[in-house]
């Protein structure tokens, strides 16, 4: 077997070594353990799991360590690993009404069954840099409620649904199995199940910005945070040989249900409509951005005029994936000598021919060109 050994290969191998040394940093400082990343960088881990489309805290922590904290790189590592994993089956849809809540807030009702639960949130932390954290600190001891939370609490949208004030969220006729975006390419028009899958693994920053744009007039959207809940839900599968559901574990989810005004149409009375967001782990910003974008993308289905980027399914969905986006933006680092040479030749040709035209030979030029030159 003949393998050409060239400078490029040595350079690549050397770059691996350099990268490893930079990642490790000062060898005098203790190396990060996965347990530390998993336990103390849990929000970073959640984002990597969510956009990496793989619920595994240890692998996400490993990816973060390997990527030296670069989240998009860590997401890419997790995705590339995930795609090689065999698939044993599909879970039963999770039921977030059965969530063991650790946080639950509603901006639409002052009080409601199950109550408002602030939980572990940065919302009211006043964002003062806490210099005491610069040193090792004693383990905090969190307070616990006098009465435990109810095992389950109804979703706000279900309470509104009882009154018929909000659109019903019903399975499509025949309850079709949703397509699996990790196995099949995205096609347009994409149904809502497909869109939500796409958004769920989409880049948080992108969804945040698009969601934000809908609040600033780029889409006629008037959202209320109907409910945000975070906690643990059981994950169930139905093994072929058993024929009934068994619980295989639990996962942490953040769910956001946005409630939006809807003027109604000739078929439908005025009512509230929904935007939905769901994310692995504690990922509130992601879930909220997703819910805003989901609602904006429903414009066509609700007969609303499409006027803004966030309402355009092809624009939004084709650009959510940061593994794709990062790769394609960064591929500009690859050599483009050949294309550049072609453009250089063209530019030289154009400049030399425009110089020739300058000496008065306009007779053979197309009419439009002559017109343009007069204007110039």
């Amino acid at each position, binding site marked *: 077997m003949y393998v050409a050994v060239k400078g490029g290969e040595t350079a690549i191998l050397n770059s691996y070594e350099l990268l490893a040394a930079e990642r490790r940093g000062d060898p005098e400082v203790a190396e990060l353990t996965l347990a530390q990343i998993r336990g103390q960088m849990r929000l970073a881990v959640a984002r990597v799991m969510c956009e990496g489309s793989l619920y595994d805290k240890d692998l996400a922590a490993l990816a973060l360590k390997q990527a030296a904290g670069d989240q998009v790189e860590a997401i890419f590592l997790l995705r590339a690993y995930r795609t090689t994993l065999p698939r044993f089956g599909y879970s039963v849809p999770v039921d977030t009404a059965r969530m063991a809540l650790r946080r639950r807030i509603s901006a639409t009702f002052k009080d409601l069954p199950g109550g408002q639960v602030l939980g572990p949130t940065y919302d009211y932390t006043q964002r003062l840099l806490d210099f005491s954290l610069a040193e090792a600190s004693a383990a905090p001891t969190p307070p616990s409620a006098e009465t435990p939370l109810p095992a389950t609490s109804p979703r706000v949208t279900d309470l509104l649904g009882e009154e018929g004030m909000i659109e019903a969220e019903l399975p499509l006729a025949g309850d079709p199995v949703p397509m699996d975006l990790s196995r099949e390419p995205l096609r347009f028009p994409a149904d809502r199940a497909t869109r939500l899958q796409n958004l769920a693994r989409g880049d948080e920053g992108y969804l945040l910005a698009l969601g934000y744009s809908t609040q600033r007039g780029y889409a006629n959207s008037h959202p209320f945070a109907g409910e945000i809940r975070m906690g643990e839900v059981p994950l169930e599968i139905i093994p072929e040989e058993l024929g009934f559901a068994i619980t295989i574990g639990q996962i942490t989810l953040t769910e956001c249900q946005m409630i939006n005004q809807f003027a109604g149409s000739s078929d439908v009375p005025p009512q509230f409509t929904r935007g939905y967001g769901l994310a692995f782990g504690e990922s509130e910003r992601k879930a909220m951005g997703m819910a805003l974008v989901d609602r904006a993308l429903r414009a066509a289905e609700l007969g609303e005029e499409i006027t803004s980027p966030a309402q355009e399914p092809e624009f939004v969905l084709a650009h959510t994936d940061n593994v794709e986006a990062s790769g394609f933006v960064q591929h500009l680092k690859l050599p483009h000598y050949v294309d550049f040479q072609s453009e250089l030749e063209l530019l030289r040709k154009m400049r030399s021919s425009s110089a020739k035209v300058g000496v008065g030979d306009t007779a053979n030029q197309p009419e439009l060109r002559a017109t*343009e030159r007069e204007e110039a």
Partner: protein
Amino acid sequence: MNGLPGYNFAYLDEQTKRMIRRALLKAVAIPGYQVPFGSREMPLPYGWGTGGIQVTASILGRKDVLKVIDQGSDDTTNAVNIRRFFNRTADVATTDRTEEATIIQTRHRIPEKPLNENQILVFQVPLPEPMTRLEPHEAVTRKLHALADYGLMHVKLYEDIARYGHIATTYDYPVLVNGRYLMAPSPIPKFDNPKLHMSPALQLFGAGREKRVYAIPPWTRVESLDFEDHPFSIQRWQQVCALCDADDSFLDEVVLDGGGRMFVCSDSDYCRTRQAAGHTGTENTPMEVSA
């Protein structure tokens, strides 16, 4: 030998290979049509050849001899990296000689040496839709392809002529395949377009990020779009290759330390072969093209 422990031959699992293989069979049956496929995340970034890599991984066998080029050269870092990937995952024989290869994966060039019927050329494609800059919505471009309505592209080319006196597209120059589908040949210079036409080799195109594959079977008509009074023409140089004196190859311009310019073949194998056969240019000392 199967390559990398813990991974299947050529990295992809068999189910993924089957899915891509089925898409490729439809692609050759419908020349120039973009077949959607369930592109997978690869351990190399999107935009760096994941489509070409998935196609190569799906067709590659133990008896194949693989050549990988980027910008015509076997030595650019990306080409080295992709060749290394298949070396690790498939333990397949590699070469930099065009005539020895059974599969050539390429980015942005078609080799200068004529290909034969036993070779497959795999193109890495960034943007498979030729009309994407004119109409970004896939739902619309699919409809235009269905109707073979390529007026949009003709208008664009005509506007070029009206504006500049000639068509101002120099690479990824659109072609009509087998008289039916408008196709992006990937960002090869239009210099290479004539090589697409009636090629004895099978040509496969993989766009990983955009999740599409397409094909030009051997001996298939491939016409570069043009107008009767503005026929398609390819780039020509005043210069010849400074290393091998070739006057018929695509030349890269190199800026020298002193500020001067030098033109050399972009196809490194072609240049080497000519030099080995005794052709010499004005700059005989072997030059180092850093990756």
